[in-house]
């Protein structure tokens, strides 16, 4: 090891940065690290959702869809594509933050952040932004793949982008909360398998809930994913089962509630501090 006195001096000691600047640089650093993480393992994180989406489009969109005919005034493939994109976004936003945060806990490198002068809301925002980035990457890839099956034209780009970003934010926060409580890798697969998958499949991805009997129609109204899928479909196709503001209201209310829960847990140190 080199140990000359000259090299030991803190020659580059800059001025003490403000708290806001420290947090901003820390946020950018964390988001960069998160993006680098899922891009490094793109074969596990980006490709499989695109393959699944192709299968959905081939089987449900083309093979079965051609026999179904029209759904809600659109060809079946046009109807399911927004739902398939949204399903990929939801699943991947959640998976990214739950697996990244839990790995950081499991390998203890979450301590790198806990000892640093970074506010908990910045840590939460960093992991959530990482989840959103992966969700959007996968969503864009699935949308690109869907062009091989149909010519989708986006009716309302701003609404489409707003709904997809807010939805992926919501599920990325959910992923962080799951990983805060998780004690083993089993614990991070319970929610995706037993909660998220049923909610997305029953969230109007493959059908319009207008087709359901009254009872199941009313039950479906309690499924928040329904409003997200419909909001996204509104952005792309220009129509949905509900008024658009319902979608935004549900998403924003859930974001606020889950963000408050996540911050409370982190401030108390649940799952990350003794």
């Amino acid at each position, binding site marked *: 090891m080199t140990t000359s006195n000259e*090299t*030991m001096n803190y020659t580059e000691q800059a001025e003490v940065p403000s708290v806001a600047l420290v947090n901003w640089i820390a946020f950018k650093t964390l988001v960069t690290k998160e993006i680098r993480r899922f891009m490094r393992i793109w074969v596990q994180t980006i490709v499989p959702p695109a393959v699944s989406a192709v299968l959905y489009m081939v089987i449900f969109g083309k093979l079965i869809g051609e026999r179904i005919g029209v759904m809600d005034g659109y060809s079946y493939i046009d109807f399911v594509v927004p739902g398939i994109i949204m399903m990929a976004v939801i699943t991947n936003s959640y998976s990214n933050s739950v697996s990244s945060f839990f790995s950081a806990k499991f390998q203890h490198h979450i301590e790198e952040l806990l000892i640093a002068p970074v506010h908990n809301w910045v840590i939460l925002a960093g992991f959530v932004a990482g989840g959103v980035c992966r969700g959007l990457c996968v969503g864009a890839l699935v949308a690109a793949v869907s062009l091989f099956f149909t010519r989708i034209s986006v009716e309302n780009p701003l609404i489409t982008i707003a709904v997809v970003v807010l939805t992926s934010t919501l599920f990325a926060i959910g992923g962080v909360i799951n990983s805060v409580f998780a004690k083993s890798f089993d614990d991070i697969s319970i929610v995706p398998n037993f909660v998220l998958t049923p909610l997305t499949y029953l969230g109007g991805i493959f059908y319009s809930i207008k087709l359901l009997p009254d009872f199941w129609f009313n039950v479906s109204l309690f499924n928040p994913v329904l409003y997200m899928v419909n909001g996204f479909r509104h952005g792309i196709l220009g129509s949905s089962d509900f008024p658009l503001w319902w979608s935004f209201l549900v998403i924003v209310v859930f974001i606020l509630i889950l963000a408050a829960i996540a911050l409370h847990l982190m401030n108390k140190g649940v799952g990350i501090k003794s």
Partner: protein
Amino acid sequence: MYALEISSLQKTYDNGHQALQGIDLTVNAGDFFALLGPNGAGKSTAIGIICSLVNSSGGEIKIFGKDLQQQRSSCKLDIGLVPQEINFNAFETPMNILVTQAGYYGVRKPVAQHRAEKYLKLLDLWEKRDQPARQMSGGMKRRLMIARALVHEPKLLILDEPTAGVDIEIRRSMWEFLEKINQAGTTIILTTHYLEEAETLCRNVAIIDQGRIVEQGLVSELLSRSMVQSFILDLKEPALKPPELSDYRVVKCDDKRLEIEVVIGRSMNDLFKQLQQQGFEVTSMRNKSNRLEEFFLRLVSKSDAA
């Protein structure tokens, strides 16, 4: 100016275990300080609280005069931690680990990259900068943790058993490195199970046992209060049995080495006279360097008995 002031620090875990029972401790700025204690004494808990990894149950901590509770962000900027367990992302490269850690402390990327280069070179890790950290040896991983703790250039560096499992050659070079860092102005707090390490490096020491500070002061002062010192004697011929010495405790290390405990102030002439009478010829003699260990063991065993 104190780098660290702890008063009445307490920690009771959820299971009721009282890890810290109100410790008071001060570390001068610029000091090289040892925090010693047996396993489970409360060292890592105390360090965890100082570094915001563990919530305290009571008491106050000041870092360079700033209250940790009131000015946590500012205090954190001054602290660097080398934890006991390897805790970096093993899939990342050393360069990325250091630049990322610097970013968490608000160091801009160009400066962070420059500093990462500096500390990777200082710690002989520059050649490994772009390899995944999991491919590094145990000693390299330990050095990487030191580089990571220094990359934001803290004023107080806390090392929790930094040389555990490291071979003697690397350990010595790490000691030399830490001494230089300390001479350059960084206050260092060290916990270690190698008491020779503390005796060699540190000026002040606190000994913690069962959540209480049982002794604190200059290493030299504590050692002078030690009543005995041990010597290793190399023999010319193998000894079938150890010599029978009156007033000296003797332990046979192996056939040609004896360890002899001598009460401080007692004449050594009598020792050699007795050895000569019993036919033992001594070829060389050295002071056993773990005097602090002897003091520590006596103190801790006394504390256990109380």
